[in-house]
Structures are given as C-alpha cells and as structure tokens.
C-alpha cells in the first residue's frame, strides 16, 4: 500500500466527549475541510466530565457551563449521529451502528472512553449511583437534596469528591474504602493519609480497610454489611469503584485490544490502517517508560487530540505523543493538582514551604537516582505551573524543591514576556 500523502476526505470520530470534541476542534483549527462525522449516543452538546463530581454536583455550575465546544458541534461543522457504535469492519472501512446503519470512513478516531463499574446488590442486580454522565450526576444531585446519609464506596477521586460535595451540602457522609487509606492507588499512602485526615476534619466518616460483604436493597437506599459484620445504612449510595474501557464494539474487528485500544506513540491503533485511538480508552505507547500506559485524565485526552489531528492531516510529517502527566481534584474548597505519575511505592516528602502564605506540597522521589517523579500541590496553582514547567527537564527532587521554595518565598516565575 502506498504511503498516504493526502488527508482523508471523511473522518469519523466515535465518542463525543473531551477526546472526540477536542479532536474535532483540532482538525478544523488545522485546516481540515472534509467531512466530519461524530457518533455519540448522548443527546445535546459535548460536555466536560470532571465537574460532574465537583461543581456540577453541588449545583454551582449549570449544564451549559459544561459545554466543551464554544458554539457547539455546529461551530466545527460536525454531523453528529446519535447512536452507539456496535461493530467495526476494517476491510470495508465501516462502523456499524446499533440501529443497523453502517457509516463509511476514510479515517477513524476511537474516543469511546470508559464506563464506570457498578455495585451489585445481593439480589444480583446493580445498585447505587455512578457518576459517568451528566444524567448520572443529575440523578445523584436529585437524591442529595432528599438524602440524609450518603455512602460513597471506593477510595478514589469519584468517592472523595462526592464526599466533599455532600458535606458541603450539609449531609452525613461515610466513605467505604477497601484500601488502607484514601487515594492510595493514585497518590500513595503519605498523601492519601493527609487527604483522609482532611476528610475526617470535615466530618466524613472514613472507613478504610473496609470490605463490603453484602448490599441489601432498602427502599430507595441500601443496607451495607461489611465483612466484619458491621452494618451501614445508606439513603444515597454512590460507587466510585473504577471503570472499564468501552471496547466491546471492537471485539472481532482485528483492532488490538488489551485493557483499552493498544496504540503506538502516534496514537495509531494496531490491526487496521487509518484508525487512531485516544483519551481514556487508549492504551498508548508511553515514550517515557517505554511501556503501554492507559491514562484516564482530561489533559491526556486533550493533548492527544492535537497529536491525532496533526497525524491525520500531515501523514508526511507525523509526530509522537509525549505525555506531560497532569490531573487535579477539588475537595473541601482546595484544588489538589498533580504533575507526573505518582508511584505508590515512591519516597514521598510532604512539606510546608515557608513564605507569605505557607505552601503545602508533596514531592515523589522515584527510583534510586533521586529523580523527581511527581509533585502534588494543595491550593497553589502557581506552584503547580512551576512544577509542570520543570518536569520535562527531569529534575532531581532537590532541584524541584529549590524551584518551589523560591516561588513560595515570593520569587516571581521566570518572565516569559
């Protein structure tokens, strides 16, 4: 097959959340004038998901404030087909839809994201809420108005952010986490314990090392029995117990799947020409670690969108994706920001830096060469900007600390103007 040199005439994007929306925008910004089709079952404009367990759940942000594309899909001249993709024929270059239609593509972008796992009650049916879509969040928000006791299951960001929102709304909250501390898998035990302490200070009943034995339906709520026999009644039950990549529609297509769609460093899927994958569903080749990595963070999806669009439109001059890992959370009015991939086994220094306003940071030292693997800031966005600027230079922990200490002491960021 000859190396393609012209951009595709028709690009089909499956999935209309941040990865799909930002790819569509990047394609148009980069001059793509061909046909753009988006396959997305949810009605309405593309919306942003991180606020669903934060500002949107409290009610402080409206649905329109979540809109991802200024002017909506029309502004990027995209035709949105409201259907689920149910299959892919890479020989015929067609996406099959659940209603039987087939959509032909010249190039395909897989941006189908994740679906949250659900809790299962002792009757074998799923129980409780998840927060994956805006309608999921609407349902939780509705229940938070009436409920008294909110139980969040899981120790990750969905559970901790939901707990924070529920406390802000004045409700009683219990977190049931099977690990030894909150956010242990994402941030390790030192920072996890610090965040758990913040939750307890704000009145959250944090149960760690707590395993659920059974869940029984109890009116609109649930009665949870822990393995140690203890019972917890929930008016509102929210599960934040992880999620699965939406790849079922690709099974049997020849596209290589392993905990997501496997891609190379250029975000190209294996098993067919002209197929890309990005965002939460992509298990991409990470050039830092020389290993495949799947990242469920907003910034990863938006950054990969630029790479996918470029490679679709400039096949003669392709670029590789080099992740600059970053994510954030908002809990009890404080922005927690993370640069790098915190290794749960890293040595962690949790420090308060002196200055006009004392600054709390955590620095992760990975491996045995004193390399700074990750930085967490608490309510200090400028500190995070400084950390993100330094991270690509692969600083040691000492070098990172010097930079952050200077800034905390009152030094200005290096002028760029």
């Amino acid at each position, binding site marked *: 097959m000859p190396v393609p040199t012209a951009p595709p005439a028709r690009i089909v994007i499956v999935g209309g959340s941040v990865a799909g929306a*930002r790819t569509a925008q990047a394609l148009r910004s980069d001059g793509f004038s061909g046909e753009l089709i988006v396959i997305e079952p949810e009605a309405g404009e593309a919306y942003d998901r991180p606020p669903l367990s934060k500002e949107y759940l409290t009610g402080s942000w409206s649905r329109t404030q979540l809109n*991802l594309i200024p002017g909506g899909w029309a502004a990027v001249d995209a035709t949105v087909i409201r259907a689920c993709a149910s299959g892919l024929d890479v020989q015929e270059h067609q996406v099959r839809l659940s209603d039987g239609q087939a959509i032909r593509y010249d190039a395909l972008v897989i941006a189908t994201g994740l679906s949250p796992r659900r809790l299962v009650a002792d009757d074998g049916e799923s129980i409780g809420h998840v927060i994956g879509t805006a309608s999921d969040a609407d349902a939780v928000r509705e229940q938070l108005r009436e409920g008294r006791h909110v139980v969040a299951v899981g120790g990750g960001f969905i559970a901790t952010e939901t707990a924070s929102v529920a406390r802000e709304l004045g409700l009683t909250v219990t977190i049931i986490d099977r690990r030894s501390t909150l956010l242990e898998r994402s941030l390790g035990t030192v920072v996890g314990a610090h965040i758990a302490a913040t939750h307890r200070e704000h009145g959250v009943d944090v149960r760690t090392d707590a395993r659920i034995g059974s869940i029984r339906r109890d009116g609109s709520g649930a009665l949870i029995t822990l393995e140690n026999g203890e019972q917890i009644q929930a008016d509102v039950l929210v599960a934040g117990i992880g999620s699965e990549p939406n790849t079922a529609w690709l099974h049997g297509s020849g596209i290589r799947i392993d905990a997501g769609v496997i891609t190379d460093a250029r975000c190209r899927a294996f098993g067919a020409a002209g197929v890309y994958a990005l965002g939460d569903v992509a298990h991409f080749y990470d050039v830092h670690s020389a290993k495949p990595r799947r990242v469920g963070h*907003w910034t990863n999806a938006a*950054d990969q969108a630029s790479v996918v669009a*470029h490679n679709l439109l400039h096949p003669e001059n392709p670029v590789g994706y080099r992740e*600059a890992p970053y994510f954030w959370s908002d809990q009890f009015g404080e*922005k927690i920001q993370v640069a790098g991939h915190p290794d749960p086994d890293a040595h962690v220094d949790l420090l308060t830096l002196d200055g006009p306003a004392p600054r709390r940071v955590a620095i992760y030292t990975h491996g045995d060469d004193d390399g700074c693997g990750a930085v967490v800031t608490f309510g200090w966005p400028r500190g995070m*900007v400084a950390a*993100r600027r330094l991270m690509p230079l692969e600083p040691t922990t000492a070098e990172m600390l010097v930079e952050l200490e200077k800034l905390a002491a009152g030094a200005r960021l290096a002028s*760029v103007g």
Partner: protein
Amino acid sequence: MRIEAKRHLCQSYGNCVAIDPEHLDLDDEGLVVVTRDSIGDGELATVQAGIRSCPVNALVLIEGE
C-alpha cells in the same frame, strides 16, 4: 490575531501555561494572564492547542486585529 483571556472563567488548571508558556501565565491569584499578545509566524498551532487545553474555554482567539 490575538489571545483574549476571560479571567472570570479561569479555574487555575494551568493547562494553557503548560502548552503555551510564550503567551500565557498564571498571576499571584492563580488566574490566567496573557503575557504577550502578538502571535508570531509558526506559533498559531501552539496558541490554538493552548486555547483547546482549557476545560472551561477561558481563552479565545480574536481574529483580524
């Protein structure tokens, strides 16, 4: 062309500064500021990527000025 920052929308995520430090920064309050508003030859793709990196669309490209 120039970049306009709608500071009242800014949520201090800092993505834009990570992508386009030549034009953008966060101030002492953690809110976005445009440090240079002229867009040089070959900078447009980075400027647009910086704008897209904002989850709340606090940055806008103003054309024709």
